[in-house]
């Protein structure tokens, strides 16, 4: 069991204002926090924060997925012209985003896709597209079709899911090491004045 002590009152370094947090098995908590946002905190008994992280991070990710029509979370494939770096950030959300790796593997091996193509990468073949006015066009590949049909929601959904993944990195750090306390320079000076080095 690892414990950490943080000042409860902002800017106060007094020991009577401090609270002690028990960080049960930090590495396991970090792994759980990656798998399901907030689960690491719930495992450590920090239920309130766990639920807050669960709602905020997963809510952001799922809203982004909804905005992007379920197309914005997919892993990079070898034939893509532009490398899909965003998926590294999206993987931060954990198990919710891992179907994209399964779908990528199945597409590379030319096996049928699962879950009705959810989180599958775009196919590299010409596809037909129809806009809101009923005009038909041929797009060079499926990614171009998604970008045209969903614009600007494709970009919005990508941003939402990327930010959700990056936020979960902060959550993982919090599960492993406790809250990040930033000590201000003025506090350090104050401490030195009150407790001069002997």
């Amino acid at each position: 069991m690892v414990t950490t002590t943080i000042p409860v009152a902002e800017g106060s370094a007094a020991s009577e204002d401090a609270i002690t947090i028990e960080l049960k098995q930090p590495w396991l908590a970090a792994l759980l926090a990656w798998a399901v946002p907030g689960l690491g905190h719930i495992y450590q008994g920090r239920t309130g924060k766990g639920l807050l992280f669960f709602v905020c991070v997963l809510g952001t990710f799922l809203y982004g997925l909804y905005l992007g029509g379920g197309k914005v979370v997919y892993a990079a494939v070898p034939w893509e012209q532009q490398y899909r770096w965003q998926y590294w950030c999206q993987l931060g959300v954990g198990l919710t985003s891992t179907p994209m790796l399964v779908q990528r593997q199945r597409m590379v091996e030319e096996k049928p896709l699962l879950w009705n193509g959810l989180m599958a990468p775009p196919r590299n073949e010409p596809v037909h597209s129809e806009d809101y006015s009923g005009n038909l066009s041929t797009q060079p590949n499926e990614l171009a079709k998604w970008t045209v049909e969903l614009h600007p929601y494709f970009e919005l959904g990508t941003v939402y899911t990327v930010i959700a993944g990056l936020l979960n990195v902060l959550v993982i750090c919090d599960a492993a090491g406790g809250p990040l306390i930033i000590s201000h320079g003025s506090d350090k000076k104050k401490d030195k004045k009150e407790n001069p080095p002997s």
Partner: protein
Amino acid sequence: MTPISLLATMFPGLIPLLAVVSLWYAVPIVVSVSLVCAATRHEQLGPILHHALRFGIWIVVFMAVVMGVLTLMESLA
């Protein structure tokens, strides 16, 4: 033709206002980012909400300043 594009055709002066409408998509993400960042710096609900409110306001002011600078640059171009 979608209602928004019809409105933009009828009232071209409203186009900048319609562009601002997309800023509403920033609200959920500002709330989420400020809450999560604040919660990684405190352990109790009170300080978390206080920090989140200040951080959220900071983000909105930052976005407004960037928007102001971009608008100024556009008007000067």
